[in-house]
């Protein structure tokens, strides 16, 4: 285990030095991203501020929801987005083969060698807005703070696992580009209170593609808002979502490897 952590650290620090070589544009790019997210949050702010709220959520609560979603998305994506989106072309180019002759697990190499430090801008913006919006919203005590941390970790793990699983499908020869497009459009729903959507979509994001667990359910639980379909128990369930999704991702990844290597017979 400790050797894996040492390896992950080494890979990430090499990857960081590679990304640092383009540091001229790094800061500018981060600033531009922060402005873009700030602007689309600003649009929602104007909308809800003028109207007073949305489905019982006041604008501060909405801001908390949106920044929580941004945080868990960017943490998860830093580990698994670009890395596994590239898997398809790495399989085609044959560079993926090189990972299979090494003593380290291929997923570890993929995740950490290309660990994406670009999300630092997202994370800073999200943390600032979360702190600012939620300071008076929630009765912060040991339990709620602990829950918040657990929820962030689980949501990030859920996002990362979903991104990994989509990428792993390229080991079955599936064109995954289109699946990412659909994933990101469903991700759009997680920025808003899901209760405003048609029932069919609520079922989709709570049960089928459980993205509601990455933002709405933990935040609604903290803020005492209703959680559709699963009720308040959903809020408790959040802390099992991370481990469960990692199990699912591990399973899909190994099946993908078995299929790629042709060990299935």
């Amino acid at each position, binding site marked *: 285990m400790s050797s894996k952590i040492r390896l992950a650290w080494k890979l990430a620090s090499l990857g960081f030095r590679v990304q640092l070589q383009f540091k001229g544009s790094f800061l500018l790019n981060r600033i*531009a991203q922060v402005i873009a997210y700030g602007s689309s949050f600003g649009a929602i702010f104007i909308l809800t501020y003028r109207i007073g709220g949305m489905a019982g959520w006041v604008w501060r609560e909405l801001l908390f929801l949106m920044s929580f979603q941004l945080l868990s998305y960017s943490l998860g994506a830093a580990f698994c987005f670009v890395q596994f989106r590239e898997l398809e072309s790495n399989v085609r180019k044959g560079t993926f083969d090189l990972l299979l002759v090494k003593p380290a697990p291929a997923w570890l190499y993929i995740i950490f060698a290309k660990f994406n430090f670009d999300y630092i801008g997202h994370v800073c913006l999200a943390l600032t807005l979360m702190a600012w919006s939620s300071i008076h919203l929630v009765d912060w005590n040991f339990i709620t703070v602990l829950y918040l941390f657990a929820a962030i970790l689980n949501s990030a793990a859920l996002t990362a696992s979903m991104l990994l699983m989509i990428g792993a499908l390229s080991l079955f020869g599936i064109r995954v580009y289109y699946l990412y497009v659909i994933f990101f459009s469903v991700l759009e729903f997680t920025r808003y209170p899901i209760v405003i959507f048609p029932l069919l979509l609520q079922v989709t994001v709570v049960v089928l593609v459980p993205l509601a667990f990455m933002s709405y359910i933990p935040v609604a639980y903290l803020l005492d808002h209703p959680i559709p379909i699963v009720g308040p128990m959903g809020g408790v369930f959040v802390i099992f979502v991370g481990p469960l999704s990692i199990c699912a991702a591990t399973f899909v990844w190994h099946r993908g490897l078995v299929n790629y290597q042709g060990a299935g017979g």
Partner: protein
Amino acid sequence: MFLNIVTLSFKVNIAYRFDFITGIISEIVRAVARIAIWAAVYETNILISSAAPSFSQMTTHLIISGTLVTRWEFQGLIRSIDQSVKSGDLSINLLHPIDYPIYLFAREVGNYIYSVAIVALPAVLILSFWFDFDWPDKFSYGLLFVAFWFVGFTIFFLIACLFGLLTIWLMTAFAIEWLLEALMPILAGILVPLWLLPEPLATLARILPFAWIGYYPSQIYLGRIELGVAWILLVGGVLWVGLLVCWISFLWHRATKQFTVHGG
């Protein structure tokens, strides 16, 4: 020549067969999100006033401005300008029989027509069955809408060109894409219509060219702007086109000078 490039880029797009299915799905999903937000707003009955649009008008506005007229991916244009700046093709392209900006415009018109025909129109059709959608009831407004649509796209294209040319000095297409993306949600008046913006932001947004990209075309479509005002706005849009063309050719001139000095 112009038509050749338009049809060529159209054909290249057709080659990506699955694009349109996922494109339609993601357009619908985005539209549903926007409509659901406004449905929640209308449920709270806060907006009931004589000036406010009806819910079906609001839905129509969201679909027309969000799904139909702004369905153009400007990133491709910015990236290709950036690439030709970095590879030095910019100076080579100066030798082409057809002007590089006109070539780009033809190509992007092709891309846009493709994505409207294959992605946006089917998405609008599906959405129109799903939600209350108003079809235009006056022929004059229908015609005007088409004119606004074209002017709006031209302005959108020119703004993207302007931003693309900034890569000559800023050297990062990535940041420029995001900056342009940052301006759209507030200034194009799609999710948040311009009448909802606080003053003086609302007035500013009504004057800036972004309003012609999303907000004005849908308002014309709905017939929510008087005909006299509509004509003035159309002239305003054409003025913006002229202004942007001047600005771009000024920058273009400076850029090419810089390139011939540096030897490309």
